[in-house]
């Protein structure tokens, strides 16, 4: 995407470019239509040329087990029994949510390593990434991963390269059931509203849209059968917010800390100017010591009366 599209930039305290007016886009993942076929995982690997390792089966359908630098999206399967005893197999495509208020971007110390485009896409620029992993700390969804090969952070780009030339993300293109759709955020909300009406008619009274306010809304949204309990979908946060720990650590605390350090230096300087240095004056010379006193500092434990030169070194 062009640099004019960037409306937020990590570790940058001045206003970014904001000339372009773009509609916000969103990817809508309808968990109620998803069959967990992993075609999106494959499409993501194909388009982005990612090849994760052939792992192991750990007793579930989830494979790979977790996101990695080579796996930017994956299906998380949960077997859930409702209070009425009905079994549901909840399948959620996990990956970057492209928050309107991205915790990763907030946490990133490297200028321009994380950017937010005017259309809402949050993208990592590996060229500027220093590999510190603060983005992971900042992400309420625990999404970015550091590559152990190049020590750069990676995550879903929402196929920003495809979107910038008018294509949908690869996962959307490949989804066989239409469970993943893409368009303007407004259109996606309307589409979701229709889906929710249908789901309610099928007995899912708590069907709803997941577009959490705590991160300013997201550009990847879910339709959930049970929007009242997002956590049952393999730990989707009920109310994601940028961790208060991260808020404490970033936010206003750091400028204040810098200020405090600067103030300490200044305080010293003015103390020096006003009070002045402490000098030892000549008349304060102590009386000559008794010759029997060793001129050593016992605290330093270098004195050995039985050893020549045990007084330590000679005065220069």
């Amino acid at each position, binding site marked *: 995407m062009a640099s004019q599209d960037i409306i937020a930039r990590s570790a940058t305290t001045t206003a970014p470019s904001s000339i372009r007016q773009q509609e916000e886009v969103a990817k809508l993942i309808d968990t109620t239509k998803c069959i967990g076929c*992993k075609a999106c*995982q494959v499409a993501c690997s194909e388009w982005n040329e990612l090849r994760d390792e*052939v792992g192991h089966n750990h007793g579930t359908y989830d494979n*790979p087990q977790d996101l990695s630098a080579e796996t930017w999206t994956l299906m998380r399967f949960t077997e859930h029994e409702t209070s009425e005893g009905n*079994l549901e197999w909840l*399948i959620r495509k996990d990956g970057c949510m492209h928050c309107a208020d991205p915790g990763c971007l907030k946490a990133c110390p490297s200028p321009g390593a994380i950017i937010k485009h005017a259309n809402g896409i949050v993208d990592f620029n590996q060229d500027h990434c220093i590999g510190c992993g603060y983005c992971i700390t900042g992400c309420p969804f625990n999404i970015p991963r550091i590559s152990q090969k190049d020590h750069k952070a990676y995550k879903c780009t929402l196929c920003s390269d495809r979107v910038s030339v008018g294509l949908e993300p690869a996962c959307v293109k490949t989804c*066989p059931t239409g469970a993943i759709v893409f368009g303007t955020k407004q259109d996606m909300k309307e589409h979701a509203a229709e889906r929710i009406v249908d789901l309610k008619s099928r007995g899912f009274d708590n069907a709803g849209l997941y577009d959490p306010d705590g991160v300013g809304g997201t550009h990847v949204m879910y339709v959930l059968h049970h929007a009242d309990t997002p956590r049952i979908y393999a730990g989707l946060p009920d109310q994601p917010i940028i961790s208060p720990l991260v808020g404490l650590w970033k936010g206003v605390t750091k400028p204040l800390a810098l200020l405090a350090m600067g103030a300490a230096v200044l305080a010293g300087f003015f103390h020096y100017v006003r009070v002045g240095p402490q000098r030892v004056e000549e008349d304060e010379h102590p009386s000559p010591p008794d010759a029997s006193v060793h001129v050593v500092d016992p605290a330093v434990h270098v004195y050995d009366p039985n050893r020549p030169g045990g007084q330590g070194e000679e005065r220069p």
Partner: protein
Amino acid sequence: MTNHWTDIANANLILVMGGNAAEAHPCGFKWVTEAKAHNKARLIVVDPRFTRTASVADYYAPIRTGSDIAFMGGLINFLLSNDKIQHEYVRNYTDVSFIVKAGFSFEDGLFSGYDAAKRSYTDKSGWGYEIGEDGFAKVDPTLQDPRCVYQLMKQHYSRYTLELASQICGMPADSMRKIWEEIATCSQPGKTMTILYALGWTQHSIGSQIIRSAAMVQLLLGNVGMPGGGVNALRGHSNIQGLTDLGLLSNLLPGYLTLPADAEQDYNAYIAKRAPKALRPGQLSYWQNYGKFHVSLMKAWYGANATVENNWGYDYLPKLDIPGYDVLKMFDMMAKDQVNGYFCQGFNPIAALPDKNRVTAALSKLKWLVVMDPLATETSEFWRNAGPFNDVETASIQTEVIRLPTTCFAEEDGSLVNSSRWLQWHWKGAEGPGQARTDVRIMSELFLRLRERYQRDGGAWAESILKLNWPYKVPEEPTPEEIAKEFSGYAVADVTDASGALVKAGQQLAGFAQLKDDGSTASGCWIFSGSWTEQGNQMARRDNADPYGMKQNLGWAWAWPMNRRILYNRASADPQGKPWAPNKRLVWWNGKAWGGTDVPDFKVDAAPESGMNPFIMNPEGVARFFALDKMAEGPFPEHYEPFETPIGINPLHPNNKQATSNPAGRVFDSVWDSLGQAKDFPYAATSYRLTEHFHFWTKHCPINAVTQPEQFVEIGEALAKEKGIAAGDRVRVSCKRGHIEAVAVVTKRIRPLQVNNQTVHQIGIPLHWGFTGVTRHGYLTNTLVPFLGDGNTQTPESKSFLVNVEKI
């Protein structure tokens, strides 16, 4: 499929049973979601496991593997006794009123004519209609005659009560009733149910009869020939439909023509037997054109050498000495040292066939084995010791294996036939690697060399090879276009068709209506006739226009026969020729001709008053509840237990051991000893595919391997607890034929079932792993599958067998 993929969107109710469409056909499954989104359709899933399809279903109920006929039989009983049938449809378009011969009977699980020693129905003479003096079948339109099909069917299924069906299936009775009630609503003319099935129905010793029972339900509901209806086989390979269409079975010729038997030396008798006269007045009995299809095929094969003197090449055709040389038979013969060499073309038998150890032993007896495949298959390395996964003694195997690398489908032009019967042309995406050659190239060169040898050295019955027509520009590699044009058909001499149109010699035919039995036309596969006309390659069309909004898309590719999208579509209109319901209009009579949103599967100018009925391929013109003598195990589907049954008896016939499992199932003598019993192997196992993989191919693809890297089996939580197995543990799954080891996926999705008053646990065993490829190597799942099958199709019983499970 009687219907097709996009037509699923027209359904009001979708029953997925004997298949897992979301898992195995995720792309086609989009039409289910379309139906749900735009048609308010409901999706019901019945399966031993809570599948990926079940995860998006409106209702799911578990069923014991192999008990589907009990479910369907109970449903037939439910529909009949609650009067939930489409009366006018059933009365007019089915055989309910036909009188069955007095010789037909059914007693304690066996139909009349059974020969226990031969384990088959040797006398099917009673399995037919009473024929009147006029040569037509006798009917009773009042349906009161106790010998009419309606009364016999009613009587047959009266035994399938809700309670008994529930006991056999292990499905809770209230779930079963709920599903039946919902299905029953589709007897309304404006409402249709589609049934989607796959190998979960075919791979049983009673597979064909399960499917027939589903067809009977659909006929009772008036859902055959209707948009959003039908009985729909979701085929497992992209071109497996094409395989059967082109007759690549040992007893078939292309277009479902049949190879003659040894006894059929008389050409005219061969034709006459296959071209039956109408059994009711005014019926079309379309197979009366058999001779035209056959002669045109022979002209395509033998060209000018097929003459009236040699019965149009009939004399060159091989005649079968036994009913068929299907794969089970071939490997049984191989094991008996009766086969010297074997060609595996795109076939991985030690992985795909049942009882891997038996198949390996059979292959070890061959002198030579040729494997034509794009991949290094397990079969091509069956002699290699791969540790526990293929523990063979290499030195003892003397078979010479020759591997001929072929291109894969994406590396060649051509057509594929999908489940919808659409012939879709595709274009090469990349060149094949290394020395890979197309299958056509390899087979052509083989043919040319054989022909040369026969020319030079002669040999027994050389004409069969020497007289073949080989008109291709490059004899070593006929092009896909040349072959496609040949199977579609061309005029050998100038011909004039029924409408008076002239087709000049050498021109492409417009369709099979132009075929002749006088040697003036050639068509390599009559049902494909019309796929490449003078207007060009119809299979390459990609127009998805849908002028009626009925999802028929007649401009997309080309469907056999004659671009008809829904078979029997005349039945979508009432006897007067009007659609049963405005929202289900497909074809109708416009006063002069049939037409509409689909190509009529009917005589286009046969007015409704003529009384011609929609099922034109049947001589009686109507659909059959009573299968006559067409099925191996009887005219009505009857529930029989899998050959390895977890309950030991057939609850319908607890005292008749002959009727426990399919009395006419395909079991070789040597196989009985390899069958286990519930006391040793207590759990009902079923094998299946996963969406992440395609058979044994994609384990060679890194990305597929990443998404499903290692062999596993699925075990219900209750059994896992009993056995002390935790998710991720390694377990050994064994049966009398061998064992596999895999990771345990412990799941809530498989629940213990109450069957015949005992608890039955089921085990799920996916099959994609082996000892080649980039996934973690594993065991071939078919090590566990018994070497027996359906008596009609010879399809193995891969979906129901007994195992034991232990934690390693």
